[in-house]
């Protein structure tokens, strides 16, 4: 089983040179720590920045420079700043190559639910609905099962969805899976020490297993 940092590390292997990437709050933010140094990528913050840098040192904290998670940040060389309307024009227009975000549920046709639990205080969708409706490639980072052991990879989402047929890949603590265009989760890799049978048992949606499933390799 992978911990949060390992999930982030595995997702980082999906990043390609030259990409513009939006990282959601939580595990996705950790992905930035594992992107290989030889890749040139640009991280977008949907409140209005291209080129997120590392967190500032104590003396460089600037309250006028935060990311979408409201954390203080810095900018890398070559950054640009813009309004939220321009930022979402960028997102909606398909200019961001890769969006990585967390989820509460994903369905076998790629629907994602990550904004609302009926009966609980609803905080809002923020930019998630715009991001999932627009990005050409969406990778979800999440736990395979909820805390009470229920699968989060479902035939259909039980929670109100954030977007339809949009998730392309999922990295969980147990596995890496593609969402097939015709529906179904195709198992690609197992986490170290996790068996195919365990993944089968913990995946409620249709699971497609083609041949031998390798264990993930970390460098």
């Amino acid at each position, binding site marked *: 089983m992978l911990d949060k940092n390992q999930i982030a590390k595995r997702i980082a292997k999906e990043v390609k040179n030259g990409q513009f990437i939006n990282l959601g709050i939580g595990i996705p933010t950790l992905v930035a720590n594992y992107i290989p140094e030889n890749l040139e990528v640009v991280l977008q913050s949907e409140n209005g920045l291209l080129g997120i840098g590392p967190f500032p040192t104590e003396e460089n904290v600037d*309250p006028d420079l935060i990311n979408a998670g409201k954390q203080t940040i810095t900018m890398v060389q070559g950054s640009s700043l813009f309004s*939220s309307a321009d930022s979402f024009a960028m997102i909606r227009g398909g200019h961001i190559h890769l969006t990585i975000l967390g989820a509460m549920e994903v369905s076998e046709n790629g629907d994602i639910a990550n904004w609302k639990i009926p009966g609980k205080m609803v905080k809002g*969708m*923020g930019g998630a609905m*715009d991001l999932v409706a*627009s990005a050409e490639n969406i990778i979800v980072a999440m736990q395979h099962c909820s805390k009470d052991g229920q699968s989060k990879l479902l035939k259909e989402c039980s929670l109100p969805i954030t977007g339809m047929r949009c998730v392309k890949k999922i990295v969980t603590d147990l596995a890496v899976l593609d969402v097939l265009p015709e529906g179904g989760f195709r198992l690609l890799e197992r986490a170290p020490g996790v068996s195919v049978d365990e993944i089968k048992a913990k995946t409620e949606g249709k699971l497609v297993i083609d041949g031998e499933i390798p264990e993930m390799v970390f460098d």
Partner: protein
Amino acid sequence: MINKTVKDATEAVKDVFSNSVLMFGGFGLCGIPENCLRALLLKDLTGLTCISNNAGVDDFGIGLMLQKHMVKKMISSYVGENAEFERQLLSGELEVELIPQGTLAERVRAGGAGIPAFFTPAGVGTEVADGKEIREFDGKLYLLERWLKADFSFVKAWKGDTAGNLIFKGTARNFNPMMATAGRITIAEVEELVPAGELDPNQIHTPGIYVHRIFQGEKYEKRIEQRTVSK
């Protein structure tokens, strides 16, 4: 050039009335019009509709207006950081309309730009689409969304001039530029107010035509929600 300067926040907000629709720039607590918010708190206002990406925190920003029961309705994309907000919402005192962040930004831009409606993919297949027209363009589904306008827009910029031209700084820009365009009356507060002609016309983010009143804010606390540092 027309001089838009007013003395201070109190004068700037003098004619804000109960039951009006207000827009506030800012993302979280970053780039919010602190001085106008403080001045509004001193007024006897109720029934306000506030359009703002977030709702502040309990003791800062729009959160303080909630404490004083001035707000009837919030239109936002994310309202998570505010316990009083939650209490009023659950008790039915407060109405909230949640809008995807990009749709919110674009609806406000549309309000300023004279575009009464536009199609966006955000929210298709979700409850956000309930009751809205859905149409297919080039094989993809889109929702029809309407413009948003306000009686008063409150924006905060870094520098401004007496003609109302504004320059923002960092990610404190966020919703401020669009909201400046969508207010029947737009009130801008700035950290530094200079005479018209001192700002480079090429670097203006918000042209003065959108700003009806401008003043230099007395004090900027610039509270940080998530102070995150690297060692």
